[in-house]
């Protein structure tokens, strides 16, 4: 089994990628603008829900319960999908899921005609790099979500879970559409661009015989599947083709139809700041005379089962991909999504991406946070992202300590030394005396500046107060000598 999450294996570390992103003023303006608008809208829509906190808690409880009984619910779900005429496939990793999809597509493709599929936005397919695999197999994947079209036509990567082309403004989108759709006179108003997409895709919706979708929710006790969307491209992709292939992470289950009442209230308000998104499509297997004649569901693990062992890590699988934590994050709002090197960016990406890959890649992501907690506050399923970030940092440090270079690395040696110093007050006071002398060369206007080595990363951007000329303990000792009588008087009053 080989877990693949987008292109993380080739991605540079976050601090390096972030520095590049921060130099791109246009990108920062676009990201600031878009996240600002969604945040404001979300706040209004959440404010009008008196039971928002109750919904969050129940959502967390339902997800927690579902994951604790995941084997039971997966088997129940599989049984119900197949009973309704669907075919369920299981995929251990990205390569296996892509192989299954390609085999299904080939099975239904007509000889001599180019194989093509219409796709409705699915982050999971980006996770497994499905488009790359399909193209490699000679199959043309056509993205139909407006933002995904922008990303696909611009040879770009998604930078946001909900609004993948949020880093592009209308003028940049116009240039991409002008070239790829051959529309030299295309206007730059958002409505012009949406109309161009409508005309471009209409024929494909009516003609292409195979559709690919993701899954927002699978209902275990009935086999029903739900896809949440806005544009109508989702309805098109799950309705018009003869064959529908849906790709679903194994954690996307809810036990019952009733449980949807919680998530369908939380997701749209958190994701786009709408009371409800324009369209939700539900279907169960095959319905004779309505929609696809063949339905294939691919259940994907790709590292997810690795997160089940530990309760803190398991909670990450609660995620319903609303993107609220991205919009709330002061780091994401400066760097945008690409700096994370993963299709899952922002705070949720910083915990999900490295965990799916057993910390083999994206090890810098748990550090891409100031731990301010804004992500936890907005999370509709109450994932404690800051706690998980700290948990992962601890795990990374403990792993590093086991390696030769990690154990003898300057950070580990310094931390071990500090730990020993903090264990004894004599050593601690000695270190203070040493620092008072040592810091003299770095003192500038009452602050420490230009410290050497790793400490310099701090002083480059932030103030650091010097060690004071005497400590509280020194002062206390001295004070004790001067006013013992007064001190004992205070004690008596107590």
């Amino acid at each position: 089994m080989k877990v693949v999450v987008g292109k993380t294996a080739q991605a540079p570390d976050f601090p390096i990628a972030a520095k590049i992103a921060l130099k791109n003023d246009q990108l920062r303006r676009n990201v600031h603008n878009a996240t600002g608008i969604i945040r404001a809208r979300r706040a209004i829509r959440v404010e009008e829900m008196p039971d928002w906190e109750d919904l969050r808690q129940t959502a967390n409880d339902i997800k927690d319960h579902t994951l604790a009984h995941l084997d039971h619910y997966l088997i129940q779900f599989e049984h119900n999908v197949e009973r309704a005429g669907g075919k369920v496939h299981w995929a251990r990793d990205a390569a296996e899921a892509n192989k299954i999809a390609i085999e299904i597509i080939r099975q239904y493709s007509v000889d001599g005609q180019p194989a093509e599929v219409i796709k409705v936005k699915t982050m999971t397919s980006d996770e497994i790099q499905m488009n790359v695999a399909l193209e490699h197999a000679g199959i043309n994947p056509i993205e139909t979500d407006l933002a995904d079209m922008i990303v696909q036509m611009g040879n770009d990567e998604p930078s946001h879970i909900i609004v993948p082309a949020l880093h592009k403004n209308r003028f940049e989108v116009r240039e991409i559409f002008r070239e790829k759709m051959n529309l030299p006179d295309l206007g730059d108003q958002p409505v012009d661009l949406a109309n161009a997409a409508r005309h471009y895709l209409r024929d494909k919706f009516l003609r292409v015989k195979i559709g690919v979708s993701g899954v927002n929710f699978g209902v275990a006790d009935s086999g029903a599947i739900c896809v949440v969307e806005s544009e109508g491209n989702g309805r098109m992709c799950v309705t018009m083709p003869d064959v529908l292939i849906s790709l679903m992470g194994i954690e996307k289950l809810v036990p019952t139809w009733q449980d949807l009442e919680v998530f369908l209230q939380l997701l749209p308000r958190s994701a786009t700041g709408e009371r409800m998104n324009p369209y939700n499509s539900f279907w169960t297997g095959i319905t004779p005379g309505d929609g696809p004649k063949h339905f294939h569901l691919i259940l994907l693990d790709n590292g997810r089962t690795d997160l089940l062992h530990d309760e803190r890590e398991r909670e990450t699988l609660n995620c319903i991909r609303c993107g609220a934590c991205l919009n709330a994050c002061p780091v994401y709002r400066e760097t945008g999504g690409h700096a994370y090197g993963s299709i899952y960016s922002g705070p949720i990406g910083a915990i999900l991406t490295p965990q799916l890959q057993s910390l083999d890649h994206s090890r810098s992501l748990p550090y891409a946070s100031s731990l301010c907690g804004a992500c936890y506050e907005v999370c509709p399923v109450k994932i404690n992202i800051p706690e998980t970030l700290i948990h992962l940092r601890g795990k990374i440090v403990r792993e590093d300590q086991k390696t030769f270079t990690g154990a003898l690395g300057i950070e580990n040696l310094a931390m071990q030394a500090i730990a020993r110093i903090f264990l004894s007050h004599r050593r601690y006071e000695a270190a203070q005396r040493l620092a008072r002398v040592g810091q003299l060369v770095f003192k500038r206007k009452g602050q420490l500046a230009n410290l050497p080595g790793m400490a310099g990363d701090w002083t480059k951007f932030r103030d650091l107060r010097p060690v004071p000329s005497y400590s509280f303990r020194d002062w206390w000792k001295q004070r004790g000598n001067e006013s013992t009588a007064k001190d004992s008087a205070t004690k008596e009053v107590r």
Partner: protein
Amino acid sequence: MTTIPTAREEILGRIRTALPGTPTSVETSHASIARSYNRIGRLDRHACLELFIDRLVDYDTDVIQLETATGDTLIAQSVADILHNANEDRLIVDEAFPQDWLPETLAVIRDNGLSTEQIDVAQTVLTTCEAATAATGTIFLVHGGAQGRRAATLLPDHHICIVRRDQVYELIPESLAAIAASSTLPITTISGPSATADIEMTRIRGVHGPRRLTVILYGAL
């Protein structure tokens, strides 16, 4: 003799190894989940309908309110007026759609399993619905019968939906409960016309689904 485990066996095996066993049954554990959020609406019927209309209008939906006392007698005339005002004359309905609600003067396309190309000719689709939610301005279509097959409700540019006032619930939980018995049929929830905000977060009405939505409200509260 060992056999190579299938992906299904391996994934389920990994899950079982990872999870500690729980003493309570799955059903008991699921039933014990606390649900302190609002599951039953608090508004009276009049206020509930007002809220529904407010939400529909907020989503750029046109709302036609027929007098409560007139029952369903004015629906056909209302449909005729809407089509006339929109300058549309190619209307599609499901073959199960009640004849009494159709304008007599119009040649209506009856969907009895038409091909995509045949449906694509229609400008307007007329359906009933199964339920609606006031708080979110949402209409629930349980496809089949007078609520139409999925393709027929999707390809035309204009969707006219007939909602009986007593089908409107205040909250999402009430509406989902009302259609629970049909939950394995194809269902579409519609909240306003299709829209996108993918470009600079500017809401644009009408992308791939119907670009206009008209709701006819009829019947007693």
